[in-house]
């Protein structure tokens, strides 16, 4: 039926399609599209900001008119197949499901020219749990920068009551999505702008296009309207008097809402937290973990919100207080906007400020005299949202400034290189005439902005320091352009520092213990206990710390009365060598999904993995261990400490979950000694803006890259590869080497894995090509890839794909300017490009003396299953943010993790080329000596072939020795 509908639509809309393509020149082929896109990117640093956009239209009227655009009646779509859905629960109209790629467009008619607010009624349909992101185009172009990233939040809630483990510690409830229809005004809250955007529409026909960046979503309508001004408190009190609202009597019960009981939240990382800093926290226990607060450092980005529900028994005016703590950022306020039942009651509630302080405070809404809120009898909702307050107007221009200065820095760098010759005159001012103009403009802007900031915070220095420093330097540049090359490095530092400042100054963390809704006369509970109570508390906590073992995460319940299932089987012991977060997430997953279904209990212990060997030798080892690095399983297995998993009948079925390259390192002959859990491999990262600037395409093959290197070097730019010169990297075989080797069909070891065969022609060839990168092409032997990529000095980086997460978190200012792609390959005779490379894995092992092997095997299957891996990955990400994205080895699970469609496609494309690096007895000698070989050749300048042959002989000697040890020879 849907297909039919689509057919009809595409048939009748065809003329429109033709019209749009011709009038706006939508590029037809994908190649052109990327080219067009890059062009946008270069210019993006000069793109109009919302402030300039609105300045242009400031005299326009805001007509009191509403235009409703039904989403189902879309006019055109490309790159996705929108689905028109029948009215869903909560709406009466048809809605449109839009995909995670491509775009949809709507056409509509505006009767009155003017400025309009826009809001979108959407439903966050199930996707990959990450925030929904769209670009907004009006009449075929992005009207201003802020419209490039519109974020539509999902709604989350606790997935369970806060539960206690058998030792009495509470653990964090997992978070589940609670999707609902939401009408979201299009605002700049994620682009340092608190306001709801206004858009200008002339009279006549217009189009709105939503380009999918991340996640699918269902849209019901887009509304153009004009919002009402929020009344001031004075006006609202006048209203109270007129309507005869009275304060409730002082004996009315105080309503207390615990922060951790928030019913809805915008982000899965806004889970209940444990705070042990004050005995006045509610609830509280000296020795046990209690989930008693919410927010914290996770609740810092503008736009994140929490919603609480409460019941009012008596109608009337109340005051509202918060027991809160802002001990993260000194010198600034944390701002929150307060909504009651979805509405900001008055202007003063738009920014409630929380001062910095080490302890807990009781903060009232309203400055000296608490503001009063009118509440009717019954259920109410209270929402608190992070807002920027006034700081937004400071950040926005500085953000543009950083972007522009970064651009000009790169331009200068292309002329001078990173170490300019002090004796040479570069004449920057005549070679780059635009630079002087930029310096002058930005220096003026920075000086003004820093003055404004000091006025706002009432303090001079500290916060405005970075700006003043840069402004002074720019003035120096203008006065004395000859000194620019010399001061370039410092200039770069200053820009980076200002960039960091922008990132941090917008963050406004706040922890909330509880909210109080009280009659105006009532005394609010105090924020902090007296110092004496505090000392008593600390003493008690110190004493109990001797009796609590926090290393056992949720011990198994041995009391069979509570849990009848214990009789069925013995508990499994699992060792984990990573953090407590991982252990807790795993524990709650096990309790909810494994133990409840199989009746098998699992005890998790946080252990320093270096004791594992001794523990196993002493017979005290676990039943299984996870997060084991690639070499461990074979090493242990050779010494008969591990269970051969191929003895289980369904092993073949289980191994289908992974790519064969992930299992290969865990094999000895036909036996398998571990199940893969993580797998990662190299991807190529490149800066779209810089490559477009140079007029080059991202390299597809190594030959392309070789051609590109001189172009980059001429402009003093570099490429970054996984380096063999990092002394402390230790032991693994360099991935660029394996790339060269595998792309030419080479192998490290012989067929039966008994000898290293790098001394064959392909091996020597790969080795030579690899070292030529350093000797002939002079690529840097060492670099800090994140910094160089961020400032653009190294626009091409090849690195394991987890680097993606580092960029997202560590360099948000280049968002949209870079891309992840498969690594360069080798073009073969038939024209295909081979992108082979070696990868890395970690695995789960079962010890030979596991007590209950069947149950342990069940657990291993459960743990590596797609479902568990996805849940674990998402919860880790929910807990630690996108930098913790789980590089799962389960192929199916990978596509369900929150990668954008485009990135997932790149990873998928590369993954099929990943080949295993086998693990063999004595294998540690291979990586070590390949590193030694290349260091000897590059640093000491020895003959490559001879050197490699010498080292391969050493490797083989060790392998033979080890093979003899294990009776394999």
């Amino acid at each position, binding site marked *: 039926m849907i297909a039919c509908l689509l057919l009809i639509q595409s048939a009748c809309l065809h003329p429109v399609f033709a019209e749009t393509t011709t009038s706006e020149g939508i590029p037809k082929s994908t190649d052109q599209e990327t080219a067009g896109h890059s062009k946008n990117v270069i210019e993006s640093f000069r793109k109009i900001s919302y402030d300039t956009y609105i300045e242009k239209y400031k005299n326009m009227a805001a007509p009191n008119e509403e235009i409703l655009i039904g989403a189902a009646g879309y006019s055109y779509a490309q790159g996705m197949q929108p689905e028109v859905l029948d009215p869903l629960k909560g709406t009466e109209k048809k809605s449109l499901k839009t995909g995670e790629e491509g775009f949809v467009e709507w056409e509509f008619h505006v009767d009155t020219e003017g400025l309009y607010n826009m809001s979108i009624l959407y439903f966050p349909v199930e996707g990959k749990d990450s925030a929904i992101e769209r670009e907004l185009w009006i009449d075929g172009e992005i009207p201003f920068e802020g419209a490039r990233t519109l974020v539509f939040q999902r709604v989350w809630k606790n997935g369970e009551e806060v539960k206690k483990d058998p030792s009495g510690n509470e653990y964090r409830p997992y978070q589940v999505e609670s999707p609902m229809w939401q009408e979201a005004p299009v605002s700049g809250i994620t682009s340092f702008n608190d306001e709801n955007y206004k858009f200008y529409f002339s009279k006549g026909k217009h189009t709105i296009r939503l380009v999918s960046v991340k996640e699918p979503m269902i849209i019901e309508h887009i509304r153009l309207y004009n919002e009402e001004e929020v009344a001031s408190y004075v006006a609202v009190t006048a209203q109270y008097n007129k309507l005869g609202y009275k304060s409730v009597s002082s004996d009315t019960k105080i309503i207390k809402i615990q922060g951790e009981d928030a019913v809805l939240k915008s982000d899965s990382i806004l889970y209940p937290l444990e705070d042990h800093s004050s005995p006045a926290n509610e609830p509280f226990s000296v020795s046990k973990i209690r989930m008693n607060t919410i927010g914290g450092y996770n609740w810092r980005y503008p736009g994140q919100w929490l919603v609480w529900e409460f019941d009012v028994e008596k109608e009337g005016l109340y005051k509202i207080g918060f027991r809160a703590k802002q001990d993260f950022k000194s010198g600034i306020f944390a701002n929150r906007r307060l909504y009651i039942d979805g509405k900001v009651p008055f202007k003063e509630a738009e920014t409630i400020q929380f001062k910095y302080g080490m302890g807990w405070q009781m903060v009232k809404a309203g400055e000296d005299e608490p503001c009063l809120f009118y509440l009717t009898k019954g259920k109410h909702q209270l929402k608190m949202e992070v807002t920027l307050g006034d700081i937004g107007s400071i950040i926005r221009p500085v953000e543009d400034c950083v972007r522009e200065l970064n651009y000009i820095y790169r331009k200068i760098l292309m002329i001078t290189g990173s170490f300019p010759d002090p004796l040479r005159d570069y004449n920057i001012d005549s070679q780059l005439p635009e630079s002087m103009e930029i310096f002058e403009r930005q220096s003026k802007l920075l000086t003004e902005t820093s003055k404004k900031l000091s006025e706002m915070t009432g303090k001079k220095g500290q916060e405005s320091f970075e700006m003043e420093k840069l402004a002074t330097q720019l003035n120096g540049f203008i006065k004395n352009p000859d000194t620019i090359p010399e001061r370039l490095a410092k200039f770069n530092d200053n820009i980076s520092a200002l960039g960091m400042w922008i990132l941090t100054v917008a963050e406004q963390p706040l922890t909330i213990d509880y909210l109080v809704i009280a009659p105006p006369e009532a005394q609010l509970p105090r924020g902090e206990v007296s110092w004496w109570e505090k000392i008593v508390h600390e003493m008690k906590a110190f004493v109990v710390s001797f009796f609590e073992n926090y290393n056992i995460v949720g011990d198994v319940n041995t009391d069979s009365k509570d849990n009848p299932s214990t009789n069925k089987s013995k508990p499994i012991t699992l060792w984990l060598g990573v953090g407590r977060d991982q252990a807790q997430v795993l524990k709650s997953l096990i309790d909810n999904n494994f133990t409840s279904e199989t009746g098998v209990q699992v005890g998790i212990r946080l252990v320093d993995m270096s004791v594992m060997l001794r523990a196993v030798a002493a017979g005290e080892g676990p039943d299984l261990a996870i997060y084991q690095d690639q070499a461990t399983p074979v090493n242990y297995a050779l010494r008969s400490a591990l269970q051969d998993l191929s003895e289980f009948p369904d092993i073949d079925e289980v191994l289908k979950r992974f790519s064969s390259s992930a299992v290969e390192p865990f094999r000895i002959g036909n036996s398998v000694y571990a199940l893969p859990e993580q797998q990662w491999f190299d991807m190529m990262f490149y800066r779209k803006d810089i490559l477009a600037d140079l007029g080059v395409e991202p390299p597809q093959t190594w030959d392309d890259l070789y051609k590109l290197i001189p172009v980059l070097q001429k402009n003093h730019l570099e490429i970054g590869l996984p380096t063999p010169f*990092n002394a402390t990297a230790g032991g693994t075989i360099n991935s660029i080497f394996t790339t060269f080797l595998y792309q030419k069909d080479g192998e490290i070891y012989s067929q039966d894995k008994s000898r290293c065969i790098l001394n064959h022609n392909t091996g020597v060839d790969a080795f030579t090509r690899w070292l030529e990168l350093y000797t002939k092409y002079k690529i840097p032997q060492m670099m800090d890839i994140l910094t160089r990529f961020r400032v653009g000095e190294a626009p091409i980086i090849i690195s394991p794909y987890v680097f993606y997460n580092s960029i997202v978190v560590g360099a948000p200012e280049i968002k949209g300017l870079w891309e992840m792609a498969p690594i360069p390959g080798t073009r073969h005779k038939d024209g295909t490009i081979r992108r082979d490379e070696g990868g890395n894995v970690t695995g789960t092992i079962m010890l030979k003396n596991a007590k209950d092997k069947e149950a342990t095997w069940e657990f291993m299957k459960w743990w590596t299953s797609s479902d568990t891996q996805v849940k674990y990955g998402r919860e880790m990400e929910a807990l630690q943010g996108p930098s913790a994205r789980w590089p799962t080895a389960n192929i199916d699970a990978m596509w369900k993790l929150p990668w954008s469609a485009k990135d997932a496609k790149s990873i998928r494309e590369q993954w099929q080329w990943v080949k295993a690096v086998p693990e063999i007895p004595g294998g540690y000698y291979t990586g070590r000596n390949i590193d030694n070989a290349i260091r000897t050749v590059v640093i000491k300048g020895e003959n490559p072939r001879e050197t490699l042959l010498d080292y391969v002989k050493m490797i083989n000697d060790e392998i033979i020795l080890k093979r003899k040890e294990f009776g394999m020879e």
Partner: protein
Amino acid sequence: MEWNKWGDDLQVSRMKANRNGSIHGSLEKISYTLGEMKRNKASYFLITPFMLVFFVFTVLPVILSIILSFTYYNVLEFPKWIGWYNYRKLFVDDEVFLKALSNTLVYAVITGPVGFFLSFFAAWAINEVPRRLKGLLTFVFYVPSISGTVYTIWSIIFNADIYGFANSFLIKFGFIHEPIQWFTTEKYILPLIIIVQLWMSMGVGFLAMRAGFASLGNQYYEAAAVDGLKNRWQELWYITIPMMAPHLMTAAVLQITAMFANAQVAHTLAGFPSTNYAGHLIMSHLQDYSSIRMERGYACAISALLFLFMIGINKLVLRFLKKVGV
């Protein structure tokens, strides 16, 4: 008082023993010893707890590791007796061990004595400054060795990136054109490790010497001045050093054991194992075999050798120190 009496008893018994001579039957000696033990049972009782702990956790492991050095032992399986094989391999068939041995000697010979004298002179110099500065300076000198892994700042200074401190400095002033790979270039590795180790050498030994200097009273110097001491050097040689002999010995023992048993600095900076084993110490070799190659038997042989080595060097140093100031 009681202790004094015991001391006298000891003196008496020693004289007795000497008089009896050693030729007349060992039986007599044993029965005499047993008698003495019986008489002093309170003392034996008092040191029992320490001896138990010392035996179980120090002596026994040493003995066990010497026994294990004659076996093939991979931790996970029961050891197999293989006689002198490990030692044979160690001496004639392990080039890396010889490399580690020579590195260790160079490393210890430089960092040991130089570090020792540095500590000594630093302690002496600090002793000469005004009282208020003393505490501060002691703290400043001692800080590198108590602040754990603070030496990692050297990996930033000698970062191989073009923006590493040393590299960018050298490039800026035109000494080099391309960054030096400090910790992967063989010829720089050992010297750099030695420099860092010297920087950290103001350890417990230094504190012992500071304590020694602090405990020297003025009366000796005054008396010596009366007796005709001419200058500060003579003061140092004839009074300070002899008076400080016990402290110097403590410091020397601590310093030497630390030099042999510590490979952490080398591993953190130059990697483990380092490029072509240029920074490989005996301790690194031991760890390589015990944790990476899982040949604990062989590792035990190395450790047994290291143990003998340290005892020998300590003896040598103590003999040397006895001659000082005489």
